[in-house]
């Protein structure tokens, strides 16, 4: 990212963002108090949401939902529409921010292709009628054999139909409906009580549903979301007397959870698309082959989940431009597995972890690439390629790569994570000064499982990072830095310890704690089957 590009990004505050976020803040305040205890102020805030949605396809639904909520007679369906209204506002904010980012960086972004599988039964019936066969987009058809080459038919197995088979074996469609219904009820109770009214019993009431969700692969997103939210509510209790509440954050999580808890329509299910609410969200899928050049790793974590999301450029070798993609592996864990020990959970993906640790490219064969740019990782469809320095990759190819579109229901500023390379800056350790433009560095996001520290950021001269947006401003989350330490140039990346730590001090500390994953697995093996 050039100085001028940074300047343009920081100066461009898309119109309407602040106003939209004020409406959201009012809604979030209503959720703090609880829909059972709306005072005039919160009722007015809901009215503002109604006004913001007026004229949009959600307008009538939101108006009715607001009226019913204020009257104290909102159904689960009404609450889902309110969540939809709030999500739509964030969708608009997201789109405006991403457009201004693309404009400033000169980044080309592919347009979204709506999947053939529609969630509306009529549309979906029409789609399959016109195709005259089971749809092959949106939900990979299980009959299609795996094929090589890029942009050919989707590949079965992996996380799409294969995972579905597991899910169906473990939980019938009826059981899934009941489970989602339970989630909707819990989220409604939470909204009625308000965050201030959430007590220990209400939090614990979600435990069973979370446990059941974790057993259904296509509901994993909802499971990790609710598990994370429940842990935060527990840690904040008694919420009634807490000094301050993460109102925006919890309302975000509530909204997302309620949308994910909607049962798929019978039409979507009949398509054999997986029966999960997420399926109609993902866009068309295609099988791709080629070379993946890694830019860096982003790590997500809460007490019982950890996920490595790798950003990279996909070269399909057919002369088309490189494509920006993300690929990830998530593992379930417990809170005592922290720091570099989390990498021990990913030993089942040696190619991806090896590529991160050794800065190598990866040759992939016939992997599913979703419409939103997510490559569904299959370690058995990948092999280590040649050495590839992420900084070189970024310098040479990031500028002209084509970015993927964002699936409509995932459009929230929190998902914005655009890889950029910045260099030639001066820094005080908190901001990078690019020709007089001060870009804030997100120092909170230097994970304890990797080698990046605030000191390294302060000593850095180049940084490969993700542009993010939160709290009304752009932030740079470092994924790698080039720095001078003890007069020697070094380059350190978040994924450097993917095959185990390489810093002797960290190796020693890890050895002292022992292999916590092995200890817990042994305990699980012995005690869970007693």
């Amino acid at each position, binding site marked *: 990212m050039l100085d001028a590009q940074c300047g343009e990004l920081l100066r461009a505050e898309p119109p309407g963002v602040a106003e939209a976020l004020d409406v959201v803040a009012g809604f979030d305040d209503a959720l703090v108090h609880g829909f059972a205890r709306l005072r005039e102020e919160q009722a007015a805030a809901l009215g503002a949401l109604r006004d913001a949605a007026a004229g949009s396809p959600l307008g009538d639904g939101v108006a009715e939902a607001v009226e019913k909520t204020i009257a104290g007679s909102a159904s689960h369906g009404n609450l889902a529409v309110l969540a939809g209204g709030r999500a739509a506002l964030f969708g608009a904010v997201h789109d405006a921010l991403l457009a201004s980012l693309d404009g400033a960086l000169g980044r080309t972004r592919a347009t979204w292709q709506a999947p053939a599988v529609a969630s509306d039964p009529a549309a979906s019936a029409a789609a399959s009628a016109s195709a005259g066969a089971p749809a092959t987009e949106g939900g990979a058809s299980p009959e299609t054999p795996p094929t090589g080459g890029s942009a050919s038919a989707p590949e079965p197995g992996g996380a799409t139909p294969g995972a579905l088979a597991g899910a169906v074996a473990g939980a019938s469609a009826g059981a899934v409906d009941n489970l989602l219904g339970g989630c909707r009820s819990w989220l409604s109770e939470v909204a009625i009580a308000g965050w201030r009214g959430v007590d220990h019993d209400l939090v614990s009431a979600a435990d069973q549903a979370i446990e059941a969700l974790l057993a259904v692969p296509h509901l994993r997103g909802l499971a990790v979301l609710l598990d994370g939210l429940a842990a*935060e509510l527990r840690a904040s209790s008694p919420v009634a007397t807490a000094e301050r509440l993460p*109102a925006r954050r919890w309302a975000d999580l509530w909204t997302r959870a309620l949308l994910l808890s909607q049962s798929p329509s019978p039409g979507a299910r009949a398509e054999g698309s997986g029966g999960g609410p997420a399926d109609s969200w993902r866009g068309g899928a295609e099988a791709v082959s080629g070379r993946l050049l890694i830019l860096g790793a982003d790590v*997500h974590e809460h007490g019982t989940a950890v996920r490595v999301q790798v950003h990279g450029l996909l070269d399909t070798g057919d002369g088309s431009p490189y494509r920006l993609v993300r690929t*990830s592996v*998530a593992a379930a864990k417990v809170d005592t597995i922290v*720091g570099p020990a989390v990498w021990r959970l990913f030993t089942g993906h040696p190619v991806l972890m090896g590529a991160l640790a050794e800065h190598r490219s990866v040759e992939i064969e016939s992997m599913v690439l979703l419409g939103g740019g997510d490559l569904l990782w299959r370690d058995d469809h990948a092999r280590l390629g040649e050495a590839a320095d992420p900084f070189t990759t970024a310098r040479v190819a990031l500028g002209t790569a084509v970015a993927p579109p964002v699936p409509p229901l995932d459009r929230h500023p929190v998902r914005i994570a655009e890889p950029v390379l910045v260099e030639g800056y001066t820094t005080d350790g908190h901001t990078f000064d690019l020709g007089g433009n001060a870009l804030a560095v997100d120092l909170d996001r230097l994970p304890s499982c990797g080698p990046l*520290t605030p000191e390294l950021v302060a000593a850095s001269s180049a940084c490969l990072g993700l542009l993010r947006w939160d709290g*009304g401003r752009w932030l740079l989350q470092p994924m790698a830095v080039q720095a001078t330490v003890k007069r020697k140039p070094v380059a350190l990346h978040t994924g450097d310890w993917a095959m185990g730590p390489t810093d002797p001090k960290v190796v020693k500390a890890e050895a002292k704690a022992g292999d916590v994953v092995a200890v817990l697995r042994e305990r699980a093996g012995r005690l869970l089957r007693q």
Partner: protein
Amino acid sequence: MDADSVAWERRSVVRVVPPVEPRKLAKVPFVELADGRLQGVVSSGSDISRVYVSSITAGTHALSCSTNNNRPCGGLHGSACKHLHALAGEAVLQYGLDRVARYLRVEVSEGGSLMGCLNGRPERAQAAVVFSRFLRHLAYLEVPDSTEPLPELHWFPAMAGVR
């Protein structure tokens, strides 16, 4: 409320659950501050398939320790057994002394030890509930990996631990 708090309340990503410190898990695989107790599971030194369920109640500081089959611990008379000492020690490593002391509602003087400040009496508690929570905890290790996009996880960035 000050401007910083307002800004904090209007962010999608903030840390809410304090970080825990890494520690050895061989002796005390499970510790939690929950249900009004510091409670956890301590592996038996002699029998690999036996564990002790130990707990200290917040406020009253009542002590309990029994096997997972609900047999009372032979070491708990009048004062705490070695399992309770191990539990308290590991809880302090995991959560820090302040957080544990605050939860149990006990004053620990500068340089004092947690167990030295507790003089609660032994009390029978249901080991089964804590043990089943431990099993639920262990069950996470058997949940298969996922390669789905899971956009939800963008709300949960890995953050720096205690440096």
